[in-house]
């Protein structure tokens, strides 16, 4: 079963610096954690604690208002502020700030269910919701909503362990260190969705992880298969991974469930295991800190809400010549300007880049119509023409080129010989189209 996706690029992987480094707890715990009410796709949560309250690690501190997932304290201590704080996605977001008492007193409303086989689908969905699990590959869609909307509609479960972004190795390490837990997590998801099989998609630059998973699966009749896919970016993009595993294409504006698929990140599967079997809500995760701009590239186990400055300090600090700190990898990561912003549930990496390893910024780039952006676009878009109409400010034309289908993987801008900021221009077009649609409505 092999269905390649179209296009893509193969950037230098830069994974060697951290792929041999186990995920270890930070030596010094953060003195404060900042928990933004927005860590997921959907509406911001409502805080249910007030300044002065004592909280334990694992205690629920915010409830979703609309689409969302609850948020839990990631350390024990005192709530010292409920106010707007810098968010790694940009701007300021209402956040609960907890002063760490250093005790790490843990208490959770969740009950451990090592015998998860006896749980009903709805019970599993409830646990996943109460554990505050959101997609951990970056987008942060609430996992219980994903499962709920997929119930009865899917015939294929795909576990996304592609980790196609350069520099990042946190999922890779997780697979090496906790294969059994991951597989249990996958089995819980299979049971919940009533499926007898699942596919774990791994890129073939992580054959050691493939081997460990296969050894763990050996002799057990789990129905889980490991798919080692040839390394190519963006294999880990949801639509491309579905195409790679099943040959199906998610329709424009559609969801994986529309083609009978449910895709979960491998870290999400691990979080599901922790929530169901151990009764632990999502309050910490593995984060890769890498790049030439950081002193000791490493993988750290970080409480959610830890300020970015504290994380890079635990990795030996930033070097003098660091120029960019990205939340996420270099292809889709968000550039940070204020390291007091915290890491959130979807933060799988901090990439600290020097000017030398970062893409050069070209003044006044000229399109030579080489069409390489079209040749690499995994969404079959005519990026070149979208860019032309965007720079000419004829945004309504870009709609005819399906600009809204763009997944912003960055393959086009990566490959562009002229150095045109294609993804940036596409974002401009999308924003302008939304504005035009709003205007048309009112």
């Amino acid at each position: 079963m092999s269905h390649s996706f179209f296009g893509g690029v193969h950037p230098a992987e830069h994974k060697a610096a951290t792929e041999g480094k186990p995920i270890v707890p930070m030596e010094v715990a953060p003195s404060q954690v900042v928990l933004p009410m927005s860590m997921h796709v959907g509406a911001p949560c409502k805080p249910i604690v007030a300044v002065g309250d004592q909280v334990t690690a694992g205690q629920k501190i915010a409830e979703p208002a609309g689409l969302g997932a609850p948020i839990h304290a990631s350390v024990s201590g005192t709530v010292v502020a409920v106010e707007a704080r810098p968010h790694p996605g940009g701007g300021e977001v209402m956040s609960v700030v907890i002063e760490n008492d250093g005790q790490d007193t843990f208490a959770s409303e969740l009950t451990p269910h090592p015998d998860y086989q006896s749980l009903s689908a709805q019970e599993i969905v409830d646990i996943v919701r109460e554990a505050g699990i959101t997609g951990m590959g970056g987008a942060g869609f609430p996992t219980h909503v994903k499962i709920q909307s997929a119930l009865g509609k899917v015939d294929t479960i795909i576990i996304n362990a592609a980790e196609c972004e350069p520099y990042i190795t946190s999922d890779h390490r997780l697979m090496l260190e906790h294969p059994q837990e991951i597989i249990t997590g996958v089995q819980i998801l299979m049971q919940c969705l009533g499926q007898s099989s699942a596919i774990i998609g791994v890129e073939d630059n992580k054959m050691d992880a493939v081997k460990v998973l296969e050894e763990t699966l050996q002799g057990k009749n789990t129905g889980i298969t490991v798919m080692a896919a040839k390394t190519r970016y963006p294999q880990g993009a949801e639509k491309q991974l579905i195409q790679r595993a099943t040959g199906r294409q998610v329709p424009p504006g559609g969801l994986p469930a529309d083609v009978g698929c449910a895709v979960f990140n491998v870290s999400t599967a691990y979080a599901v295991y922790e929530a169901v079997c151990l009764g632990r809500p999502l309050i910490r995760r593995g984060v890769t800190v890498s790049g030439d701009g950081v002193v000791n590239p490493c993988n750290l186990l970080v409480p959610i809400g830890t300020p970015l400055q504290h994380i890079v300090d635990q990795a030996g600090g930033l070097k003098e010549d660091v120029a960019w700190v990205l939340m996420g990898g270099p292809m889709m990561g968000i550039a940070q300007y204020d390291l007091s912003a915290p890491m959130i549930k979807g933060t799988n990496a901090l990439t600290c880049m020097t000017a030398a390893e970062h893409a050069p910024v070209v003044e006044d780039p000229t399109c030579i119509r080489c069409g390489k952006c079209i040749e690499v676009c995994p969404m079959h878009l005519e990026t070149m023409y979208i860019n032309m109409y965007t720079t000419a400010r004829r945004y309504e034309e870009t709609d005819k080129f399906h600009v809204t289908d763009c997944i912003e993987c960055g393959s086009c801008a990566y490959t562009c010989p002229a150095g045109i900021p294609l993804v940036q221009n596409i974002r401009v077009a999308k924003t302008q189209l939304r504005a035009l649609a709003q205007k048309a409505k009112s």
Partner: protein
Amino acid sequence: MNTLSVSSSPHLSGKLTTRRLMLDVLISLVPAMAVAVFFWGPRALTLTLVTIAACVLFEYLYRKLMKQSNTVGDLSACVTGTLLAFCLPANAPYWLAIIGAFFAIVIVKQLFGGLGKNFMNPALAARCFLFSYPTLMTTWAAPNVNLPVIGITDEYVSTISAATPMAAMHNGLLPDATLQQMFVGQIGGCLGEVSAAALILGGIYLVVRKVISPRIPLWYIGTVAVITFLFPMGGQDRLEWMLYSVLGGGLLLGAIFMATDYVTSPSTKRGQVIYAIGCGVLTVFIRYFGSYPEGVSYSILVMNAFAWMIDKAGKPHRFGTPHFWEKSKAKEGAAK
């Protein structure tokens, strides 16, 4: 610590630059240049260098005069210069090359906005403009004549000129040259078009370096091959006629280096196929029915003008929607 920079993702870029692509094109033209020097002496090289220098100078002066950025560094003017020299006879006077360079760079390229904005291949358009001097453009030195670097007179040229294979083929006859001579380039013709072997070598380099996809050259040459095989002129042997048609004239130079010009060719896969077939059909039509023995330049220029329109027809399949051959099935399904 420094202040942090903020910019849109992606934060990595590949090694490809416009300059690198142009440099690769120049490298790929070296074998053809070497063959020209072998058959006509250093004069072939000096003519090419003069054309390049003129192109670079005109680009520099025009942009300086118009208070625009200096774009000489992207090497595209060097590529235009080399290609223009390649479609001149090796014995063409220097001043002719300089006029051609002016037309290519100033009229065709810069007046439309510079690199990426011109709608015709500058070198080819200039070549066609230079046919205002028909005698100079259609008097070709025979191979193995060591041309003097300076001081070529009309009288001298008349003593060393030879007909190109295309002249015979225009009348439905096979040329005197053997196929081996055609392949190596031991024939009369423009400076850079004679040696099929050198041009194919350059083409392979471009494909291996991923500068061009082989799509346009293969469909273009393939179209010419199929038509000439099916309809040979003058009752000639099909296979022989086809081989002479493919190796003769500017077909290989045009198909590999001119028709693949990024700026003036379609960028979609399907568009490139349509464009290349169009080039092939027009080339054979002009060769068979035109008053001219050679049709490569005109057919490429005509298809250049359609490049954007063809891209509209070449729209890629939208991700996640049925292919056109599935649409009828989907409709049937809906009807049920």
